[in-house]
């Protein structure tokens, strides 16, 4: 089921005018920033479908920039977000795409700074609810609502069980988990959503495991 909570329906509290094109867009921007780890130097925002056709009228550009600045959906600074992004030395560029995507409200974000680059695809499915469907060309499904970690690792036997053993030893319950890879034996990724809070010690332990190359945390 795509919607889990009464507050997906009655909510979010938000700056108008559109839950999918404004609030959802802000949420995607904010989750992308969280995945990146901090404010990027530059963001290239590719808009598809209805996002591409009506982003101006809905303030989608302002909302995404606001999300990248770590604003919540009800932050009154959203209408000034593009100006504020400039002042915060974050370059935001919009690209209007004509490719037809599976869901009409799709955005592809490329976030960059001197050290790294991250590509995130987000979909605003309605009522402000979002899904992250792609990360550095890994297919995944992430709501952005729950505490989660993404573990990038080498596609070797035993890595999944090593990671889940750390979780078990720390009494952390997994609510959702996905494993995917680009090519057999090469780079792979785990998406793990959990019920409990993940403290830094646990993350460090996982990061130190053999064959684990990177950890991205998404903790509320």
């Amino acid at each position, binding site marked *: *089921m*795509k*919607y*889990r*909570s*009464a*507050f*997906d*329906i*009655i*909510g*979010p*509290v*938000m*700056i*108008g*005018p*559109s*839950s*999918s094109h*404004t*609030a959802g867009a802000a949420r995607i921007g904010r989750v992308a920033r969280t995945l990146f780890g901090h404010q990027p130097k530059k963001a290239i925002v590719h808009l598809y*479908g*209805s996002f591409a*056709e*009506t*982003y*101006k*009228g*809905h*303030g989608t550009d302002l909302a995404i920039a606001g999300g990248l600045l770590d604003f919540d959906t*009800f932050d*009154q600074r*959203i*209408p000034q977000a593009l100006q504020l992004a400039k002042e915060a030395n974050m370059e935001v560029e919009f690209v209007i795409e004509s490719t037809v995507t599976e*869901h*009409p*409200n799709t955005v592809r974000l490329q976030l960059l700074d001197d050290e790294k680059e991250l590509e995130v695809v987000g979909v*605003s*499915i*309605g*009522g*402000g609810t979002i899904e992250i469907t792609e990360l550095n060309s890994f297919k995944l499904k992430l709501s952005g609502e729950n505490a989660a970690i993404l573990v990038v690792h080498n596609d070797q036997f035993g890595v999944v069980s090593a990671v889940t053993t750390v979780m078990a030893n720390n009494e952390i319950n997994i609510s959702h988990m996905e494993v995917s890879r680009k090519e057999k034996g090469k780079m792979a990724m785990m998406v793990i959503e959990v*019920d409990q809070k993940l403290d830094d010690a646990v993350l460090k332990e996982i990061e130190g495991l053999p064959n684990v190359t990177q950890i991205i945390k998404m903790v509320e």
Partner: protein
Amino acid sequence: MVFRSVAELVELAESKQVKIAEVMIQQEIEVTGLTREEIIAKMDRNLTVMEQAVERGLKGVVSVSGLTGGDAVLLQNYIKSGKSLGGNLLLDAVSKAMATNEVNAAMGIICATPTAGSAGVVPGTLFAVKEKLNPTRMEMIEFLFTSAAFGFVVANNASISGAAGGCQAEVGSASGMAAAAIVELAGGTPSQCAEAMAITLKNMLGLVCDPVAGLVEVPCVKRNAMGASNAITAADMALAGIKSRIPCDEVIHSMYLIGQTMPTALRETAKGGLAATPTGKRLEAEIFGRQKQTQN
């Protein structure tokens, strides 16, 4: 257990002999792990946002584009004149629904119910019916949980996105949710709530999403007005004992199928319907031409 259909929702409420609102609250406790108090407090905050939005809208607002604003006030003044034909409660609901959407269009703070383009119907009807039924604060909060329960089924089985399913998925869903919640607040049974939702949604099937200039203004604000009056009428019909010949879940499924076959031009792309009329296009050119000038 999580309910997946309106039939299951009604069955749960009737077998436990509780309100639909209570079924939603219990599910929320189960799914989120939050306490009852935390969940009620969260909805209370949403209710406060709705109250403040209506209050602000009734003072008169104008959107950034200048296309909408002030109609909620015009209607309130008309009600006060004593000349209204449609009944004061109905028109009050219409005015308060528009007030919310006018604030939304002005980039003010609102609560999406279930979306922001359809944010007016649920609070508009609640605050109008409130004047007659004098509910407690808790009953008003329950009104929102009942709305949520019906919206939850629609969102998971069909869609609440105009881009995916047209306006029937947004204002249609909102109106059905409101109708069901009005019935429960007025003392109707869970089945009557479902009948009200079915009757309302049937009257919204096929409604397209065709916003002028891609703004959530024309015709969105007035579609919320129509949605509010539709919800109150259907609620009265259901309370009178009228039943929908097509069960609620089948109406929801047909809404989904209609959305699937709706052309892209009529699903929030601002390329068809009212957006493509000569006036719609002229307004678009005027608004974005003017914004460009101010940017330069």
